[in-house]
């Protein structure tokens, strides 16, 4: 899985920055680089946009570009300790996790997001990504032909499809595949249609976000 996001509109970013124009613009070399929203290249693009805009407005500014290997690991975030003090604000182009980890590391500095984190997904083709997983914490893909109804059915139905499924598409719009149509097709292709007859019981959502923020400790990996 890869975390996918969208760059925020330039106008929103400028509004959020307000009078804070000494900016440390921080990219991330992981998922957001792959989906083309927050890597070194996008840091360069946004930095140019900001410089052009403030120059035109006749304002003083300083935009420093820097891209970390990852914003979800302290060892990389720590690398910018020496430069943080020179700026009013850190504008992070990482996913929501990266933004937060930077913020909790540099507690006296405002940290703003430049990206809307959207989903865990796959690359369908160059420039096209699609959601696949919601991190529910209790995988049932063995039961559903390898297609996740929690992430891919608009109603997260465990016993679909609903009456709105039409010609393989979801009732919410004709561009969205009906997850349960995909499930039935996959069960047929893999000769497992008997699976369809089984009722999946009400789920225990505690493994997902409903159980509260999640944390995982692996004693075997700790130093």
């Amino acid at each position, binding site marked *: 899985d890869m975390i996918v996001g969208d760059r925020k509109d330039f106008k929103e970013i400028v509004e959020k920055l307000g009078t804070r124009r000494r900016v440390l613009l921080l990219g991330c070399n992981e998922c957001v680089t792959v989906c083309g929203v927050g890597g070194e290249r996008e840091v360069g693009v946004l930095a140019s946009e900001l410089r052009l805009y403030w120059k035109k407005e006749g304002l003083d500014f300083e935009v420093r570009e820097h891209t970390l290997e990852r914003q979800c690991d302290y060892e990389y975030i720590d690398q910018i300790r020496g430069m943080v003090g020179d700026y009013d604000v850190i504008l992070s182009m990482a996913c929501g996790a990266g933004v937060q980890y930077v913020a909790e590391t540099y507690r006296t500095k405002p940290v703003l997001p430049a990206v809307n984190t959207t989903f865990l997904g796959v690359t369908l083709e160059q420039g096209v990504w699609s959601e696949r997983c919601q991190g529910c914490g209790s995988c049932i893909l063995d039961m559903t032909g390898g297609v996740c109804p929690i992430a891919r059915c608009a*109603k997260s139905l465990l016993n679909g499809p609903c009456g709105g499924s039409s010609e393989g598409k979801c*009732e919410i719009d004709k561009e969205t595949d009906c997850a349960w149509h995909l499930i039935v097709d996959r069960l047929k292709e893999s000769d497992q249609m008997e699976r369809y007859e089984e009722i999946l019981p009400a789920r225990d959502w505690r493994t997902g976000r409903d159980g509260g923020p999640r944390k995982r400790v692996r004693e075997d990996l700790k130093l």
Partner: protein
Amino acid sequence: MKTESRIERILAGGGFVVTSECGPPRGADPEVVRRKGELLRGVVDAVNVTDNQTSVVRMSSLSACVILKEMGLEPVLQMVCRDRNRIALQSDLLGAAALGIHNVLCLSGDHQKFGDHPQGKNVYDIDSIQLIQTVCRMRDEGKFLGGEEIKGKPALFVGAAENPFADPFEIRAARLGKKMKAGCEFIQTQCIYNMERFSRWMEMVCERGFHEKCAVLAGVTPFKSAGMASYMKKNVPGMDVPDGLIDRMKGVAKEKQAEEGIRICVEQIQQLQEIPGVRGVHIMAIEWEAKVPEIVKAAGLLPRPD
């Protein structure tokens, strides 16, 4: 008999059930419900009360059910899984039973995108089949979904909806089978216009014997106009309207189209009565409740049993 439901009683006696629908108002005026109820009195055996249909906020289904109940009508409480989690759903089931409601219809619900609050979150803690299981467990085992014992079991007759025309077609009978296995006792179908396709579905249902444990009430909706027929074909997901019917509606003058729509509906009910396994009809005359008595009478289904 598991409940005091009129639908259960008529089915047990081998009778043909006639149900209809009442959409609660988008406001707090109980008179709207009473007016609609009055039109249906003595004409149908039970009245479904929709639950924030098409995701538009309306008076709650349970409240409107109670208003109809006070008038002496037999309401069917529709419950969608979109807006309430298992705690709220079970709580409302207890409340419904306590207020003398005898029937519940378990539904997924339309996505909120179609309604007046597309910004809202949806819930879908459980789905319609799991809701059927939940009601049956509460009624038959006296247990909540969480496993705790219930003091005072809710005696509700359990129904669900099924759309024989949605895709993929080949699992549509199996899906009814899953609802039956979950404990569903009656099904009201999506509006039927394609009789041939419905008959094929019904054959699949009967071949597997599902119809014996789960009574199928066939859904019909009269066209008010040729425009409505075309609109339903084009814009309602999972609706199958044959061109022949649209042509027939277009073939009569505009002012005669409503009458033609009623005539078609009556013919459809008569055809449905002949299809093996069909145990009743569900007449969804959307904001056209005034026509239900005429349809039921013309279809030869009056008087209704006590």
